[in-house]
Structure formats: C-alpha cells, structure tokens
C-alpha cells in the first residue's frame, strides 16, 4: 500500500493534516487505534486561554507572544513567524469545510455544563457563547433538561448565569418514547437520547413541549442531546418557535464532538483519503534516518509505504504516550520523549494545580521532526497532543496546538 503520506492517529490533528494534504493533491492514509478524544470535546477549540501564571488571555496573538517568551519549547514557538498565517489557514479551512465557527482575534467565552464561563478561541456557532463577560447578550433564558438525565446540570448552569445577571427559567420534560430508554439503567446517554429526539415525529412533540413552557425568554438553551442523526434538528426548532436555540455540552459522550469527528472523517474520505479504523501500528522500518514503511496489526505482512509520515497519536488517553512505572515512552517509533526521570515529580498533590505529566511529550526540532537519540528523522513529523512542552488543560491550548501544528506540517510536506 503506497501513499504520499501516512498519518498515524485519526483524531483532530491527524484529520486536519490529512484533509489539508488531500486538498494539496497528496494521497494520504490515516491509521487509528479506535475513535479519538474529539468524542468528548465541548465543540470549542482553545488556542490560548491562560498564560502559565494563570492569568486570562484576551488578545490571542499577544498572549502567544508572551507564552513563547516564557516557554521557548512550546509547540507554538516552533511555528515561529508562520503562526498568524496558520491561524488564518485554520479559519479558512473551517469555511471551506462549511463548519460555522465563531472566532476572532480575542478569546470569547463558552458556558460549561457546570455553569462556568471559560475563554475559548473558536466555537461552533450552535454553542452557547458570549463575546464579553461583562456583557451577556441575554437577560432571560429558558433552560431545558430531560428528567433523569444525569449528565447535565441545570442548577449549576442557572447559578453560573445568575452570577452574570442572567435570569434562567429551568424546565424538565419527558416523553413516552424517551421513557422507553429508561428501561436501560446505563444507556440514558446523550447519543441514545438523540437517536430518539432526532426523529421528526418525536422532535415535533419536543417542540410542542418547548412551546408550551416558554414565555418571554430570549433564547432557549438545550443540552447537546440532539442532532446526531438529524443535521437540521436545531434549525427546525428555531423555525417553529421563532427563538434562537443554543447548546451547552454534556458529560461524555459528546454529540458535538462526535459530529465533528464524523464530519472531518467524511471530508477526508471524500477528498480521496483512506481511513483505517481500529488498527495499531506495530513496527516501523527505518533506513538512513527516514521511515520507509510501517506495519500494522490488521495488515500484518503488508506494509504501508509512504514518502512522509506524520505522528498524530495523541496523549496518554489515546496511547500516543505510554507511562510505565519508570518512564514515558512513545510506542510506535520509540522517539525521544521529554519526561522527568523522578516519578514523584510527575504529579502535583492538588489535582487542580498544574500537573507536570501533562506537559511530557515527544521531542522535536524546530521543523517538528521527531528525534531518536537527538537525531531527527527526515520524513517523520509530529503534530498534536503527543508533542512536548505544553499543558493543554491549564493553558487552554489543546485545539490550537492540534490544528496549527497539523497545518504547519501539511505545508512542510506539500513543499517537499
């Protein structure tokens, strides 16, 4: 199996890289061990929300400048002068893909399932977001939840919005078709609820309930439990009720995240890419500081050959990094990894403080090439969460690193 580029890892960074390369006429294959971390994403991408000292970032590029001064090994530092262009490429790509994102030069704010208000860079326009914390766009909202749905918290959201002078009327509801789902003690999840609510006849019943409960609220807030099968579900509600509908994420599984993954995957395939799900890369043949071919579990003795390789395998969750009792390793190529050899230094005793282990990752040179014993591999590029020297949770930089490094590497490969 011969390709221009083989991408290991089919999550956000792998797919963005693959899509961009396919658009530039390169034939790509993506190999993915299972589905990706996008499945619990909130639907908002963070580029830089906080500096290392915890202060909130408003203007993003200024924030990045300060960040790079404080952390010259940060993946953004390796993007160098190209960073502003990459941000433009990203927003352009969203447009080309017909994904409506709200984004700007400064962070805006998303509302979380616990009613917190968090800075973010680019959010799907269906999400309930606000431009400025001091000025919420609504004074009165209607918030609905399915009775007994445990992964969404109207009380917390109500309090969170109340703290910003927004009046929230909360409503519970139920439908006999949804009651059928309750027979199963474990599967009342957003995805199964959506399977039911997305059906036209049941959606209409839901809309009737919404109509019957709301009065003069300006906007309807719903948990993200609609729209998995029916892309027009929200539009339909808006049209029939005449009020905007905004969505707040739920605990996993996240329908927003799933749709994003599915959408990017379909785009990649429709552009001619080959997506191989449920496979593990076991071995790689290296020659002259280059990767020649890789072998996977499913394909056995039939290797995947490519001129370029991209490692987009993610962090510990996705098994891009594996932590043993003594070390952190990158399991596909055994690349150089930055980690502390004293395990007690991996953790902070307060789980909410900065956790050092989250910043461990694969070392690269400025070109984002992987290293073995400090020697770069000429045709192996590293993108996304597997990279070293950044803490996506504390900084709010996960989406940004994944997308921008993926685009940067796609550029590099296309030029080659």
């Amino acid at each position, binding site marked *: 199996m011969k390709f221009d580029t083989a991408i290991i890892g089919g999550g956000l960074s792998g797919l963005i890289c693959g899509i961009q390369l396919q658009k530039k006429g390169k034939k790509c294959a993506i190999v993915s061990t299972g589905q990706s971390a996008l499945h619990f994403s909130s639907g908002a991408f963070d580029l830089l929300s906080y500096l290392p000292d915890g202060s909130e970032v408003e203007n993003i590029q200024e924030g990045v400048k300060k960040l790079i001064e404080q952390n010259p090994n940060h993946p953004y530092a390796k993007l160098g002068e190209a960073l502003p262009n990459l941000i433009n490429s990203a927003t352009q790509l969203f447009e080309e893909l017909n994904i409506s994102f709200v984004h700007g030069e400064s962070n805006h704010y998303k509302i979380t399932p616990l009613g917190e208000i968090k800075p973010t860079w680019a959010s799907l326009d269906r999400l309930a977001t606000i431009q400025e914390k001091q000025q919420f766009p609504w004074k009165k909202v209607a918030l609905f939840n399915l009775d007994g749905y445990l992964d969404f918290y109207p009380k917390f959201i109500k309090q969170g919005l109340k703290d910003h002078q927004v009046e929230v009327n909360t409503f519970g509801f139920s439908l006999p078709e949804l009651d059928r789902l309750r027979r199963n003690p474990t599967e009342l999840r957003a995805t199964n609820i959506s399977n039911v609510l997305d059906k036209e006849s049941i959606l209409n019943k839901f809309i009737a309930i919404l109509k019957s409960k709301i009065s003069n609220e300006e906007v309807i807030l719903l948990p993200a439990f609609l729209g998995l099968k029916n892309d027009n579900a929200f539009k339909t509600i808006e049209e029939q009720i005449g009020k905007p509908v905004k969505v707040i994420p739920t605990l996993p599984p996240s329908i927003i995240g799933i749709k994003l993954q599915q959408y990017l995957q379909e785009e990649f*395939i429709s552009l001619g890419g080959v997506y191989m799900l449920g496979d593990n890369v076991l071995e790689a043949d290296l020659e002259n500081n280059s990767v020649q071919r890789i072998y996977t579990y499913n394909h056995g003795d039939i290797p995947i050959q490519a001129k370029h390789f991209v490692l987009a395998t993610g962090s510990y969750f996705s098994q891009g990094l594996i932590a043993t009792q003594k070390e952190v390793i990158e399991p596909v190529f055994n690349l150089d990894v930055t980690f502390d050899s004293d395990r007690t230094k991996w953790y902070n005793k307060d789980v909410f403080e900065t956790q050092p282990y989250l910043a461990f990752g694969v070392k690269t040179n400025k070109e984002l090439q992987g290293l073995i014993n400090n020697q770069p591999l000429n045709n192996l590029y590293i993108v996304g969460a597997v990279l070293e020297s950044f803490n996506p949770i504390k900084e709010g930089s996960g989406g940004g690193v994944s997308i921008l490094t993926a685009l940067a590497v796609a550029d590099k490969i296309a030029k080659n």
Partner: protein
Amino acid sequence: MKKKIDHNISNNNFEQCIKCTICTIYCPVAAVNPNYPGPKQAGPDGERLRLKKSDFYDDALKYCTNCKRCEVSCPSNVKIGDIIQSARIKHSKQKPKLRDILLANTDFVGSMNTVLAPVVNTVLGWDVTKLALDKTLQIDRHRTFPKYSFGTFEQWYKRQAQKQSEYKNQVSYFHGCYVNYNNPQLGKDLVKVFNSVGIGVQLLDKEKCCGVALISNGLINQARKQGNVNIASIRKSVIENKRPVVATSSTCTFTIRDEYPHLLGIDNSDVKEDVELATRYLYRLISQDKIKLNLAEKKIKVAYHIPCHMEKLGWSYYTIELLKLIPNIELIVLDDHCCGIAGTYGFKKENYETSQAIGEDLFKQIEESKVDYVVSDCETCKWQIEMSTTAKCEHPISILAQALR
C-alpha cells in the same frame, strides 16, 4: 526497539478500559434495544462484577450480536466483544433451543437440504411455511431463507480436482457453508479468478462449518470439535503442503483466525497468518507485481458494504482496491453501518425487530443510491440486504470473475 501492544485477551484486558463510553456510541444494538445493557456495562464493567460473584451475569448479554464494532472504536484496545462472548460461554445457563440447534448446524441442515433443494426452496418460500416456523420454532416469519443449491460445491469441485492440480501455484480454499450448500457459483467464481492468474485451487482434507453460529448459540463443545478438525486440515495444507488457505467469507475467515483462539481456546498461532480472505491474497500478489488480473471494462455502478467482521479485520481496503481495478466501474462505499442480521441472530423472532432497526439507515442509503449491485464479502449481509432492499448483492470475487476477459 518497538513496544508491542498485546492483542490477546489476557485475563486483565478488561482492566485497560478507562470508561470513556466511546464503545456505547458505536454499538448498533444499544442504539435500538433498551434491553441490552450496552457494551461497556456488558463487557468491562460487568466483568469486574462477575469476578466478584458469577451470579452477577446478566442474561441480557444474549442481545450482543458480536459485531465487534465496540472493539474497532475502543481507544484502549479492550476486546469488548470477546469479553462479552466469553462471559456468555462461561456463565450463561440458557440451554440452546431446538431452533438454535437447527440454525447453527449448517453442515447438517445444509447437507439435508441440498439433496432436495428444488423442493426445499419452494417450500421455504411459502408464507404458510414461514408462519409455521414462526409459531413452532420462533423463526421470524418475515425472514427470507437463502436458496439451497441442488448439489454441493464440493460435489462440483470433485470434477475439477484433476485439472486444478496442474497449476504451478496452489492455494487451499476454505469454502464455508454458504458456498457449499447455497451458492456454489461463488466458489466457481473464485476458482475462475485464481486460475486466470495461474493459481490452482485445492480443497482442504476435511472441512467443517467454521462454527460461528455454534458459538453464538452456545454449542461450544461442538464448535470446538469442528474447529479442531478445521485447524488440523489447515495445518496439513499450510505446513505440510506449503499451501496457504484463502476464503471468500469474511465471517469464516475472522472466526478461524480470531474467535478460535479467543473464545474456543484453540491455538492457531502457527497457521493464523496463512489463512486470509481471497481478496487480500490477490491484493498482495498484485501489489508486488507478481500477478495481473485481466479485466475488461464493466460499466456498472456498485455500492460496497463493509461487513462488521471486515471492519474488524481492517481489510476492506483490499476489496475496494481490487474492485477499482475494473475499468470504468463506478464504486461508492456505503456509510459504515451494521446491516443488522448478525448471522442467525436476525432469524430469531425475539431479535427480528432489533435487526431491522439496526439496518434501517443502511437500507435507506442503499435504496437512495440506485446502484446496479451492492457488493459485500459476507453472505449473511447479502441475505439481509436482498431481503430488506430492492438491491441485489454480489460478492466482490463474483464481480471480478464476471469482469475477467
């Protein structure tokens, strides 16, 4: 130096689950049947409870179709489907009903029915027969039975055996029950395709049904017996006669390679890599420029449906690439959906509704696609698609055979 990821089910594979819930999203059964606890609960969660006390086993695990889509989507390499099936084998106290025994014993039923195929096929086609089977055996009356062939594939092959030996290169063909009792034409197509590139086809010394239906219906001892016979024959072919084994059924292939060691405890490690789908076997040789298929133009529009076991094997790429070799073929790949039949599962009255609900989106997409054929490597997918849509479903090897000059 590379890190090996252990793919066997160790006793602790379920411990690799970190409760991310991704498997529950992709389980086709959980999406339509609220009586099924879902793969996370039935698999790794349930396993911990069952280890505490075996009476924590939930009979509702019988609703699992063993499609392995949970495993394909799991980011933690947990063999969820295997855990559930192993639990059923170990803990289920349900005795197989007569219906299950009949549905699962394809060799027996097949041999009987091929002798009187014309009569059997007519009778099985009658509504009154289906109604009677529904009432007495709980085989759902909506189900269409596959037609039986008047004479088995093995009987036909006997007449070719001599000629086949004359080829320089040889493979053994695990034909499976479907080819043998229902559709020998597919077997003939395989022989034609392989012969066209100079490869002769042999049968195994002794071939029994791969046992996939026996496993899912709880007839484990019989499955193991038959499995051991098959592996012995495969060993003779691969090791003694240096002949690799190819198959046309994705389910048979998957069962022999993976379910034998994981669920039946049959060690096949010395021969596993030499048992594969015919499409993969051909792909390898073509990509190494060792053979070339001489294909004429075939201006047809086909939709490829990836069977669940194919998705698990990860081999749909080979079938698709082979089909793309046919000049001017228009090929679309259908969205990745289980068709719902899950072998004998969909024949059972208590599962029929679930089966059809699972396949609903697939059927809709097929009807809207207006293709000449649906193409799929799995025979039960074929039955399901042909029963539930207006499309005809062919095996990729048959399409290739028809396109040969």
